[in-house]
């Protein structure tokens, strides 16, 4: 069984949630311990990747690289969500309001 790997993520660049979500995605391949740490004014999120008993041969080095990429993606998703939250609510409110455009709901027929 390979040794556990330790990774660090800059807490200024990544939210804890983004890291958690990234880890969750690979949770069938390895086990993850996520911790928020504050050292000398530098905040970081540490992740320890350990092999699972059910999957002992997983290449943790490669997994760590994939995890970094996934963390970037998750962070981006958060950013997108934050920026589009307002218009998303607007669209959904409009979608489920009473305006009729789909057949059967037109407010007046032409004949």
């Amino acid at each position: 069984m390979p040794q556990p790997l330790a990774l660090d993520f800059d807490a200024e660049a990544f939210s804890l949630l983004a890291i958690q979500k990234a880890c969750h995605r690979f949770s069938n391949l390895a086990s993850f311990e996520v911790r928020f740490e504050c050292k000398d004014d530098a905040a970081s999120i540490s992740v320890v990747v350990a092999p699972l008993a059910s999957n002992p041969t997983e290449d943790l080095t490669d997994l760590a690289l994939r995890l970094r990429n996934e963390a970037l993606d998750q962070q981006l998703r958060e950013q997108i969500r934050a920026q589009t939250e307002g218009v998303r609510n607007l669209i959904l409110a409009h979608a489920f309001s009473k305006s009729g455009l789909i057949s059967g709901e037109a407010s007046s027929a032409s004949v």
Partner: protein
Amino acid sequence: MLKLRGKASVKNASNDQSKLLKITRNKHLPVALRPKHALLLSAHDFESHKASSPNGEDISSDFASILFLGSQKSFPETVPILPNSRDVFLLPEDFNYLAEGDILRLNPATGNIAAVFRKETPNNSILLTERCNHLCLMCSQPPKNIDDSWLLDEAFDLVRLMPTDTPNIGFTGGEPTTYGYRFIELIETTKRNLPRTSVDVLTNGRAFKDEQYAASLGRIKHPDLQLGIPLYSDDPVRHDFIVQSKGAFDETVHGILNLKRHGIRVEIRVVVHQQTLPRLVQTCEFIARNLLFVDHVALMGLEITGFTRANLDILWADPHDYRDTLSEAIEILRTYGMHCSVYNHQLCVVNADVRDVCRKSISDWKNEYLPECDKCTKRPECGGFFSTQILHRHSDYIKALTS
């Protein structure tokens, strides 16, 4: 190509302003009806009259106008032309097509005449204004910024004069909604006076971004009304460029949505040329994904008139060259279940797979053919050419289909 407007010399001109009159050939028309009619006589009729009544005594003076068809040669100045009749128009030969039931606008002071309604034509088009808030690169009716609201006034009169068995009329411009709520009234009046006539309106649809305006049209509940609205691209910049108006795309789309919300039939029209071709397929995909509920999509060929001629270098594309793009575009619309048509394309320059949606628009000033077409087996189904296409520009690949 039929000449619809012209000038005639007028004898015994009255002080009447421009007036609309129905044409009859029946000189025994009941007296009560004559003041609203113009009596149409051919040179032959005139000749036979001369024999029996040299001074034209038996032609009633009750008619609002007398129209003589024939060349100037038939009417020597010396013949006294029906001294008892007023507004005698000597029509040039171009107007030989006039027939019973047609409606003419006559101006005794200027001699101007215009055929505004023709009974034999299945699709009569009524011009409401030449004003427009667009300046389409390929406009066939270049806008004029003048007060021509008399055209609207006349339209109200016309729909009250036209026979009630008229199958179809079209209201065009310019932009008909320039008249705001008077346009809505016109549709209402048309419904009342021609309840069985289908109505097509060509409009850029922008005025309908005001939902109240769309609602007012919907409330009329016209039994057979369709609005033909151009949408030239899925790309708002490209659409706005083609119509030369910023913000046009959004307002037109908004208008279409409102019209559909209020139960009005909408046809989307796309003119196929150099500026629309780069995104024609994407535009049809856009229509299929976003405007699936419109009633019809029409892809139209260029008419080489108006601004098209001035912009030909940036507009012209040979249909033969873009036939695959056209096929792809139509296939998308059809796959998504949309009703679609191709207009103004000759059958030999489109792929076989779109021939069944190529419509032969039956308007008698449009269907002309080339000599090559004489041997074409598909000629009866093919709409042929606009005379402007024959005159100025058509595909280089016109070839008779012989299978």
